[in-house]
């Protein structure tokens, strides 16, 4: 809407308003990404450490995602646990005891 209005005033083929809108959207995304990358890495490592105390895990199967919404964001933690994690857990406990 606002873009169309600006186009009307800006002349027939004004591309500057398009450039502005594209930049605003892109930079909002990139600024968030840069600020958060460290947070996500830290979260992933700490979650992995806590869960690994009790369940044997493949570190590559721990996925931490942050979806940014307008008013709320969701943190999604996806951990794949092997079916025989009980046995694996026993193995960890034996190792820790011995």
């Amino acid at each position, binding site marked *: 809407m606002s873009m169309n209005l*600006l*186009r009307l*005033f*800006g*002349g027939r*083929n*004004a*591309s*500057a*308003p398009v*450039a*502005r809108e*594209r*930049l*605003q959207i*892109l*930079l909002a995304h*990139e*600024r968030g990404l*840069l600020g958060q990358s460290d947070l996500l890495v830290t979260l992933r490592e700490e979650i992995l450490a806590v869960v690994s105390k009790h369940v044997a895990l493949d570190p590559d199967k721990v996925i931490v995602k942050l979806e940014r919404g307008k008013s709320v964001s969701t943190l999604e933690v996806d951990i794949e646990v092997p079916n025989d994690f009980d046995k694996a857990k026993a193995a960890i406990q034996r190792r820790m005891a011995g």
Partner: protein
Amino acid sequence: MAKVLVVTSGKGGVGKTTSTAALGAALAQGGQSVVVVDFDVGLRNLDLVMGAERRVVFDLINVVQGVAKLPQALIRDKRLENLWLLPASQTRDKDALTDEGVGRVIAELRSRFDWILCDSPAGIERGATLAMRFADEAVIVTNPEVSSVRDSDRIIGMLDSKTVRAERGERVEKHVLITRYDPARAARGEMLNIDDILEILATPLIGIIPESQDVLKASNVGTPVTLNNAESAPARAYIDAARRLMGEEVAMVVPAERKGFMNRLLGRRAA
């Protein structure tokens, strides 16, 4: 108190070196003692734009590594006696520069000059981070064009996180310098306008340099544009920007379109 000012942009080819030379000369013309330091190791060009390419003996890396003393590497400008150049090395690579070594050289320059202008290489890697590392102020050179504005935004983020000042919880004073501004294209809406750029980058403006043949002419002859033709539009814009850096209040002049005869005759609006 000496001020360290980095001239940076992220994107290449936007006018960092031209702007470093022009602002450095303008500050020197204003009576300040100035050194311009080239951080573009391996691709130095500030010497060429300043017309000192045949006088380079020692360079920044030689000083960082202790091969030469600082006074041996400093080159005095032939036109202005209070303007100096510290060139980059053309043969070595940027890995020869260390954080600690650059810090030492900057500290020594601070004791000798009012202004230390660091001409950053393009990119966001070691050369660029070292050029901004010890800065008190930054001039972010931006063209009115999407890729340049995006890269400027990235560089602003780095100035707020990777500099010594940022790590101490202090601020680097940042200014946007818009270069290659074409008023006719801006009026037709083909070029990002200044308010849009400033709104997106949320950083104050230090000057608007119009696109001009005078800039190329000056670099062709190896003279900062402010010295080559002080009356030209880009020179006046750089001189105003330098005065603002020195704390003066100077009204901002937005380069206006010089309407052609036919356009005026037809009463064509530039909206």
